[in-house]
């Protein structure tokens, strides 16, 4: 984990439903510089643009002279299976924006194949707490990085009727500046994606992410944070932790769609979903992630409780291993291979629990587990605390999260 000195690149990327890319990019240290933005689809550059379009809103925010926007149609030459589009500032190689391409959400991909196991699912359907209705909307608009967050903060700082609400942009920046800057690392082709929920105070979150980055340094990990607005300063974390991708929850996204959005944005072959990154021991996580086993889905204690409450049992327990270090796994929701996520078909969207907390939405997790089991995947439910050996990848980084 390298120390970062300052935020050198700011920007944002959005994809409209018709595939048009909208965004902006500027280098605060070089206000007159015209950033060159490479559009990267699934890791491959497909086109480039110089960000010179006037954005009066950004000029009013002090982003140089405001000539830092871009708007381009996405060319048709990206792979048919492309899901993720990224915007990369060329001189720094910094990825400042990431979004999903419009298209069928993953939750629908498995529909046809799942018909083949419909009988098995039907046997369990009575115990489901939700009705899976499909037809989810595009989740492309669910993404946001620092750009819109700054705008939102600016709007909040002005406030209706001239009343400055709290915290406002300036106050938020002062508060966030307490957090030491760090580089979580940027991996061109990550093998592991850590998807955390911004539920804890930002100082604790930052410390946990830094520690996880150190513990997973040898595993080519990337870090994404699901921001549902529960922590007001979480949207500024990416200014302190370089390489952190922030995924904002929009009001219209239900719990399943929000999780799908995050997991679709992740690029690693192994996916770890953490309901609370501060309550997951980093080196224990490395133990779970280091062996790639596409046939197993690891579920955390909270999810296990949901399954039991739904009357489901018979799930596997984790194998007994050498026990040196007591590790906290209370904040782990799920660890699985990306291909398993796609096989399962993602989380059910537009389920009954429209506005519920993602981690308390028992229905989507029960549905997810049932579909995984129907597909023959092994489900292992982990306890909240567990003894582990020292980390297989970075023994020096072993330790407890703050």
């Amino acid at each position, binding site marked *: 984990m390298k120390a970062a000195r300052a935020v050198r690149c700011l920007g944002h990327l959005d994809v409209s439903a018709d595939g048009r890319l909208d965004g902006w990019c500027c280098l605060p240290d070089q206000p007159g510089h*015209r950033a*060159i933005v*490479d559009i990267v689809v699934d890791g*491959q*550059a*497909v*086109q*480039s*643009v*110089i960000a010179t379009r006037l954005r009066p809103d950004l000029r009013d925010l002090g982003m140089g002279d405001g000539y830092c926007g871009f708007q381009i149609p996405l060319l048709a*030459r990206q*792979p048919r299976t492309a899901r993720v589009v990224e915007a990369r500032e*060329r001189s720094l190689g910094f990825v400042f924006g990431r979004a999903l391409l419009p298209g069928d959400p993953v939750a629908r991909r498995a529909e046809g194949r799942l018909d083949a196991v419909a009988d098995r699912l039907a046997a369990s359907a009575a115990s489901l707490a939700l009705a899976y209705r499909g037809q989810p909307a595009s989740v492309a608009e669910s993404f946001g990085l620092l750009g819109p967050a700054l705008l939102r903060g600016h709007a909040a700082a002005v406030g209706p009727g001239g009343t400055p609400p709290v915290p406002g942009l300036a106050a938020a920046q002062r508060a966030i500046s307490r957090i030491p800057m760090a580089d979580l690392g940027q991996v061109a082709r990550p093998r592991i994606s850590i998807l955390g929920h911004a539920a804890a105070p930002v100082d604790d979150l930052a410390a946990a992410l830094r520690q996880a980055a150190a513990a997973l340094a040898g595993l080519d990990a990337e870090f994404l944070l699901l921001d549902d607005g529960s922590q007001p300063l979480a949207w500024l974390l990416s200014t302190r932790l370089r390489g952190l991708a922030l995924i904002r929850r929009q009001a219209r996204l239900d719990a399943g769609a929000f999780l799908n959005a995050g997991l679709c944005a992740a690029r690693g072959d192994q996916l770890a979903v953490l309901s609370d990154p501060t309550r997951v021991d980093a080196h224990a996580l490395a133990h779970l992630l280091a062996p790639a086993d596409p046939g197993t889905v690891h579920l955390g204690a909270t999810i296990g409780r949901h399954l039991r409450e739904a009357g489901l049992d018979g799930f596997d327990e984790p194998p007994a291993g050498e026990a040196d270090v007591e590790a906290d796994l209370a904040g782990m929701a799920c660890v699985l291979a990306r291909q398993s996520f796609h096989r399962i078909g993602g989380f059910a969207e537009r389920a009954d629990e429209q506005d519920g907390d993602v981690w308390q939405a028992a229905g989507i997790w029960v549905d997810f587990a049932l579909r995984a089991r129907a597909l023959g995947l092994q489900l292992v439910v982990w306890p909240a605390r567990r003894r582990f050996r020292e980390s297989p990848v970075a023994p020096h980084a072993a330790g407890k999260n703050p």
Partner: protein
Amino acid sequence: MDKVVDVVPYEIGMSRFFGQTDIGRAGLLHGWSDPEEAHVWNDGPEAALRLITRKPRTPYRLTFEGEPFLSKGCPRQDMTLFVNGLRLGFWRLTEPRPHTLSVVIEPQQMNDRNGMTTLNLVWYLPTSVRPADVGLGSDYRELGFCFRMLTITAEVADG
């Protein structure tokens, strides 16, 4: 400006922009004017650019954009593109507007070394003229084409 400065490192799929914004003088071997903010003119009948990219597994499509220098005294611009000494394209430009021109480069037309390939691009512009010679000011450069952007893409999905 006839000085070898560098080669242009190139990642397939991205666009490189002529002028100070991006390429600057890198890879401009000979036959170029001084780069301006977002373009560069040829200066003389032959302009050469060298770039380096990874070894191809499929044909590449090279596309470049720009505008010809046309006037009453110079109604057309002829342009031939040579890649690694091979003549791959010819265009006769008669309209004073932006043009997007492209050629396909086969893998066997590239020089591979250590997993990388070097592309020596030479635009032959025999109809370049000095604006001063056709009554347009005091510019004594020999202008034929104003280069703005260059893109190389894999002609089919490249792995």
